[in-house]
């Protein structure tokens, strides 16, 4: 009978003749099922839940907010009980009495489920399954992933090496599949090497393996590969997708962030085979372990890898919510396979995760003790500092001192708090300015083109002289004295260039110099990638010719010149004759560290030459740099006004002055204003300002401490700036809490909740600490049904291409069911029983016969199991972008095997960064590295999130803007273009050609075979060799005829080819190498 017709008729007659409905439909069902499902019992988990979750749970699932008719179909009890005015949705054994079935079969628009506006339409077969399921008694099952795995019985094996094969073979047979033969040894060596280390095997390794007659030859190879350091690099690279590791902040300015020690920690963890439970605990809560080691603290970088912002206008609370959500999503995806982020605005639509669960979980991360805005700096705290080895001891001292000083300041402030309050409250309070005796010996006020200086309206209280830019002043004749051999401070108010194009080069400020002796001050910007970064240089010279001088150039500092803003620079010298006695800073900042110093002064620097203001040749120390960056005319008095920058004032003091002594100008006025503002309207920074004023001017001990701090800071920064930093987690003292945000909106905080894990998973055990450490321990608790399953599934995916659960990121109700549920559970329990031993687990995978099969496919097999989920053949799929790049470097012999360290910038086409970057970003301009840095493994490539390396992106490498545990695998022409033409690949091809030409003689055919062997580990088939030889002859004649230009071709890349090679020969072999590196077999793991 025609089913559709039956249904149509049935519904048409429903109201008039219920009996007819039933009987007609019933006949239809029976007939249909007989034909389609046969005798099999319908499984709730396999057959029914997917239908309900896809079509019903949005309105009849866990989300209370959107629930209709008070009906839940995700909880057994609810589905079988009456709800509100409605009868139970399902009547066991009787579909036709079950409103659920009636509603999905009716054609009445008003009653029809799912409702037409949901755009969900049930398939015939789905409706029939529901009918049969109800008829069979509507047996309910819990979601497979949320129950404890139980170690299943291993099927009796008739094929294979280990338990994995037993499970797989059983399933294969039900699909009508038979396993493939074992792959040959070169194939196995290649597959193993690529999977375990991300690099191909050397021809020697393959040869050894092929020759090894021992029964455990394969196992020995596995062990050997697991032991290599390249193993950890490869596994870490995969993990870093999940951790969304990158070298920039990710949002807005997308500046550099220093967290690569975390990346190196991951490499090391894999190489040391850190058990996965420990690996987890340290990353989630290393900082909360008792007396955490540096490594354990580094591990917490996992939660600092999230994208952050400092966009002007962004609000802390807004981003606190965003970061917490990211951390929840990442942790839930990576360890639990749950899409918890869905529950941030409403209860989860499908999984039993409530909003409360979400915010409880987010509380774990909410207690993070650090700023929300990243400040666009590389070292947003909290950080760990790893000083250079030679600084280790000094660092301990200086940071100890620093802590003590800041403790002392804190204590002092506490002791004097009452007197501060009293002073604030006192209407008749006294104002005073502590003025040490530091009147300038003289002050120069500059007129620019006879205009008054734009700043500093104060009346000077000391001798002044009005001058113009470019003037030369004979100090003695003016009655001023200045001796640079004694302590002094030079303080000048500058306007830096505003226009970008004018920022580069060196801006002369002031000097008194006779060509060989004297002193001079200049500001420089020599790095176009940082248009707002300036260096300040001060020289004190006895003899330039002899290099008898002190010279200090500060590290580049970010200034943000605007049209109306001034920069004040102070140079203080203590007369000691040493660079250490020199301090350069801007107002309100600590002294800068130097990037370059000369410390070799033994004579006087005093000269009679006039003081020159701007507009002079600065004569840089580095002549090469001088030629490039020297530019006249910044302060050219003939030009039309101060377009590019100017000096507003210059003061020279005859004693050293420390930072806290500056800035007294309008202080009192400002403080009065602040105190006139009602207390509740004072912002925290206003309060700080009042406090600072009071302590500086009324409490002498405070000034002393500040002075000591300033000195300490200098030493501290000196070491810090050269040290390696890594972002880490630290916890506030308070218990972790969060507020439930209504609809997920940051400005609608509701009820406060305490940190906990989702209720449906039982919550934290009563004795657990309710913080990240409690979470970490819970994740790896044997009672947790998810972590081990999710982890082994992802590992499986890395070796077989697809997980046993294909949606490795989602083990929830909307995720895919496992193809081999028993195997998954067996693996999960085995992994835990084996103490979460990762190497051992990988070994179990690769020791299986399934893994070792040939990857050939028959058309029949393709028909039955296109995606190779049943593994009746070996895994076969395109290699990841990083592997492809590493592979060509490896086979060409140029791979730089150094492990770890700062990220590197290999070849990248011009303009990738600055086409998109915020112009003030410190990653706006890409400067390629040179030498060995070009040939590092891809996991060390500098990862700029908003413009990732294009030759990686094209191979589906995720942008690292969020957690990713499963990559797409596309096959596009852009990939072909990259592999054929990217200079990195072309150069590697030439290096491979050279490798063969240098080390191997023989005929073209022999050399081609050799080249092939480097690429694949074994010799080419004759047929392929012939094709390559034929290509060689074509290339050769093309280069000889000059259609193609050998000379130009072999020049590609930074490395220079050995001049001993014949050009045509080298070019032709290079093209052969390029050809080999573009073969499907080179690009594919098989």
């Amino acid at each position, binding site marked *: 009978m025609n089913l559709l017709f039956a249904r149509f008729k049935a519904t048409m007659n429903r109201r008039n003749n219920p009996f007819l409905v039933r009987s007609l439909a019933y006949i239809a069902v029976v007939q249909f099922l007989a034909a389609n499902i046969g005798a099999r019992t319908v499984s709730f988990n396999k057959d029914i839940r997917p239908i309900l979750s896809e079509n019903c749970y949005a309105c009849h699932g866990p989300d209370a907010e959107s629930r209709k008719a008070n009906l839940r179909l995700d909880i057994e009890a609810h589905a079988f009980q009456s709800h509100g005015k409605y009868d139970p949705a399902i009547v066991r054994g009787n579909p036709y009495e079950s409103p659920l079935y009636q509603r999905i079969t009716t054609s009445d628009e008003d009653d029809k489920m799912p409702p037409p506006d949901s*755009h969900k339409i049930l398939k015939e077969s789905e409706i029939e399954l529901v009918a049969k399921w109800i008829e069979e008694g509507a047996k309910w099952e819990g979601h497979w992933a949320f129950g404890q795995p139980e170690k299943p019985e291993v099927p009796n094996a008739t094929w294979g090496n280990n338990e994995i094969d037993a499970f797989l073979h059983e399933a294969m047979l039900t699909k009508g599949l038979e396993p493939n033969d074992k792959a040959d040894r070169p194939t196995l060596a290649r597959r193993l090497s690529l999977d375990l280390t991300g690099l191909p095997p050397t021809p020697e390794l393959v040869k050894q393996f092929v020759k090894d007659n021992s029964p455990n030859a394969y196992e020995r190879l596995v062990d050997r590969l697991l032991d290599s350091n390249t193993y950890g690099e490869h596994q870490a690279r995969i993990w870093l997708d999940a951790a969304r590791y990158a070298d920039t902040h990710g949002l807005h300015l997308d500046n550099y962030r220093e967290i690569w020690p975390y990346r190196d920690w991951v490499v090391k963890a894999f190489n040391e085979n850190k058990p996965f439970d420990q690996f987890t605990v340290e990353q989630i809560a290393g900082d909360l372990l008792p007396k955490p080691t540096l490594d354990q603290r580094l591990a917490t970088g996992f939660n600092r890898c999230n994208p952050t912002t400092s966009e002007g206008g962004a*609000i802390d609370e807004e981003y606190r919510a965003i970061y917490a*959500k990211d951390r929840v999503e990442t942790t839930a995806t990576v360890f639990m396979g749950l899409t918890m982020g869905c529950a941030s605005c409403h209860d989860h639509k499908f999984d039993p995760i409530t909003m409360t669960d979400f915010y409880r979980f987010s509380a774990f991360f909410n207690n993070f003790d650090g700023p929300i805005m990243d400040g666009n700096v590389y070292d947003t705290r909290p950080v760990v500092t790893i000083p250079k080895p030679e600084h280790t001891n000094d660092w301990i001292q200086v940071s100890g001192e620093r802590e003590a000083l800041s403790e002392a300041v804190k204590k002092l402030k506490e002791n004097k708090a009452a007197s501060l309050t009293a002073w604030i409250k006192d209407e008749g309070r006294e104002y005073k300015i502590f003025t040490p005796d530091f009147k300038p010996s003289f002050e120069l006020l500059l007129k620019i083109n006879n205009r008054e200086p734009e700043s500093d309206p104060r009346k000077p209280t000391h001798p002044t002289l009005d001058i113009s830019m470019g003037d030369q002043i004979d100090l003695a004749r003016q009655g001023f004295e200045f001796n640079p051999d004694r302590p002094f401070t030079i303080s000048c108010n500058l306007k830096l260039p505003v226009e970008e194009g004018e920022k580069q080069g060196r801006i002369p400020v002031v000097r008194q110099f006779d060509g060989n002796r004297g002193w001079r001050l200049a500001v420089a910007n020599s790095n176009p990638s940082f248009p707002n970064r300036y260096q300040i240089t001060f020289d004190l010279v006895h003899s330039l010719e002899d290099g008898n001088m002190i010279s200090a150039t500060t590290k580049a500092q970010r200034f943000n010149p605007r049209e109306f803003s001034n920069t004040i620079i102070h140079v203080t010298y203590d007369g000691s004759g040493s660079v250490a006695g020199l301090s350069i800073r801007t107002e309100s900042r600590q002294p800068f560290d130097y990037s370059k110093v000369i410390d070799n002064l033994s004579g006087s620097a005093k000269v009679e030459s006039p003081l020159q203001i701007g507009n002079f040749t600065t004569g840089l120390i580095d002549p090469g740099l001088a030629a490039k960056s020297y530019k006249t005319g910044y302060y050219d008095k003939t030009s039309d006004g101060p377009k590019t920058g100017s000096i507003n004032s210059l003061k020279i003091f005859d004693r050293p002055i420390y930072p806290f002594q500056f800035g007294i100008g309008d202080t009192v006025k400002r403080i009065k204003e602040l105190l006139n503002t009602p207390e509740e309207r004072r912002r925290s920074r206003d309060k700080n300002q009042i406090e600072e004023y009071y302590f500086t001017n009324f409490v002498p001990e405070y000034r002393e401490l500040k002075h000591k701090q300033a000195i300490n800071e200098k030493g501290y920064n000196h070491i810090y700036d050269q040290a390696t930093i890594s972002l880490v987690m630290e916890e506030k003292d308070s218990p972790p809490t969060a507020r439930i945000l209504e609809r997920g909106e940051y400005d609608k905080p509701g009820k406060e909740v305490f940190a906990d894990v989702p209720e449906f998973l039982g919550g934290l055990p009563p004795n657990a600490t309710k913080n990240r450490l409690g979470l970490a321990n819970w994740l790896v608790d044997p009672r947790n049904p998810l972590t081990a399953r999710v982890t082994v599934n992802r590992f499986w995916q890395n070796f077989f291409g697809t997980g046993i659960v294909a949606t490795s990121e989602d083990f929830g109700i909307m995720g895919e069911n496992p193809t081999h549920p028993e195997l998954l559970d067996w693996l999960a329990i085995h992994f835990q029983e084996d103490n979460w031993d990762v190497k051992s687990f990988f070994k179990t995978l690769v020791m299986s016969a399934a893994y070792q099969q040939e990857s050939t496919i028959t058309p029949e097999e393709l028909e039955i199991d296109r*995606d190779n989920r049943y593994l009746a053949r070996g895994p076969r799929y395109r290699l990841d972008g990083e592997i492809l790049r590493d592979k060509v470097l490896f086979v060409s012999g140029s791979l730089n095997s150094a492990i770890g360290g700062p990220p590197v910038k290999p070849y990248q086409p011009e*303009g990738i960064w600055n086409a998109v970057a915020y112009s003030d970003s410190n990653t706006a301009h890409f400067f390629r590295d040179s030498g060995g840095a070009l040939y590092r493994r891809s996991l060390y490539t500098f990862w700029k999130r908003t413009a990732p390396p294009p030759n990686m*992106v094209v191979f589906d490498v995720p942008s690292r803007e*969020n957690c990713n545990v499963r990559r797409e*695998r596309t*096959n596009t022409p852009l990939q072909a273009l990259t592999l054929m033409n990217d200079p990195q690949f072309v150069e590697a091809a030439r290096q491979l050609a050279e490798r063969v030409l240098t080390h191997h003689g023989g005929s073209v055919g022999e050399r081609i075979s050799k080249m092939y062997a480097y690429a694949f580990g074994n010799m080419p088939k004759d047929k392929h060799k012939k094709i390559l030889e034929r290509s060689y002859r074509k290339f050769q004649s093309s280069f000889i005829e000059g259609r193609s230009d050998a000379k130009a071709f072999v020049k590609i890349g930074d490395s220079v080819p050995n001049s001993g090679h014949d050009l045509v020969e080298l070019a032709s072999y290079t093209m052969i190498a390029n*050809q080999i590196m573009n073969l499907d077999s080179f690009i594919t793991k098989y």
Partner: protein
Amino acid sequence: MNPIDEYLSFETRRQFLGKAAKGLGIAALASIVGPGLNGGARQSLGFGPGALGMTHFPGKAKRGIYLFMSGAPSQLDMYDYKPEMQSMFDKDLPDSVRRGQRLTTMTSGQARFPIAPSIFNFERVGNSGAWISELLPYTKKIVDDIAIVKSIWTDAINHDPAITYIQTGNQIPGRPSLGAWLSYGLGSLNDNLPTFVVLNSTWTGRKTAQALFSRLWGAGPLPSEHQGVSLRSKGDPVLYLTDPNGISRETRRDMLDGVNEINEDLYHEFGDPETHARISQYEMAFRMQSSVPDLTDLSDEPDYIFSLYGPDAKVPGTFAYNCLMARRLAEKGVRFSQIFHRGWDQHGALPKDLPNQCKDVDQASYALITDLKQRGMLDDTLVIWGGEFGRTLYCQGALSKTNYGRDHHPKCYTKWIAGAGVKGGTIYGETDDFGYNIVKDPVHIRDLNATILNRFGIDHQQLSFKHQGLDLRLTGVEDARVVNQILA
């Protein structure tokens, strides 16, 4: 057919290969449309029909061009004329207008919010009588071809989240962009160019400009072949397009012949359809190596075209050049191209900067519409103009008669949209006298995106992709409406 293709087609073996490749491309479709979780790879740059197979209803637009003004142009100085404000110079914006709306931290600390009326003159033009500022003399001429929507609004107030939002439907990075959705849903109209092309432009306003992010044309969780391909004006137009120095086309052909021959044998050995797909992708790459330079070589454009687009059209990388390029892309069957023009973030010195920015885009935008129209392509090409949010009426920083700045304003701004059955000469939506709040016909950016999809025959609720248990949509989970009032 271009000369190189023609040359190739004379060679029988190659002709065979080329055809085989095409046949395979279509055979490979199954994997594009198929479920997203298989172990095998998907092919192509969206070559062939998209995931939808058929559109939900007949679409008016075959292709689209999005002129994106990044940084947020000031609607108050260009389109949303507020003459009453002239008399309110430097008066405080009434609290009743601002209604405690969130401000950026750039102006939230300001003691007052003085009204800065536009210093630019406006004029009523066209049959529609739309008010257009003197900064846009050319746009005045196309005013009856475009629908001006003055009531666009968004939730985000800062650049990064706002531009991510309008481009991907979510403020947080990670979702597919509009172009990627179109590529995914509709597939390609050609077999030798990408489906979704992005063009970044130079600008003449303030040099410090807001960033763009590759996520703005990213594919999110969609297969990466749907991400926008940047067409660059310097270096290779498409990354790695050009053969290495010294390698002729013949040598590349020889190399590919060898690769194909071995791959064909590998196919026989392993039976993996991916291998065949790879052969066809390499062939398409080879075709792109000719078709793209062909596309970017403007020497076949007549003089009158250059005078239409203006002198900038000859300078690679300018907005005008990119507009002309976009027209060429549209002609060659590129589904969607998006031109980004930066430098619109006028927090200060607006009167100095804005005219330069307008000059960059005014004539070129006019030329694009005019050019499409004269080719009969405006009927099935959708053009959208505008940025990520608007700017405040009140002044940021010091206000003078000649100088002012404007902060970010998400509550209302203006965009225009034209072609593909959009009713030209429409003015839709109204803001209050302060240009601060919408008083009539609000259009959320979700509504705008729903309307854009509608033009392509797509029901925005039905174009979805399953990801982490969710049906992702460009318009998200909240309601969105198609703005039928601007459609013919």
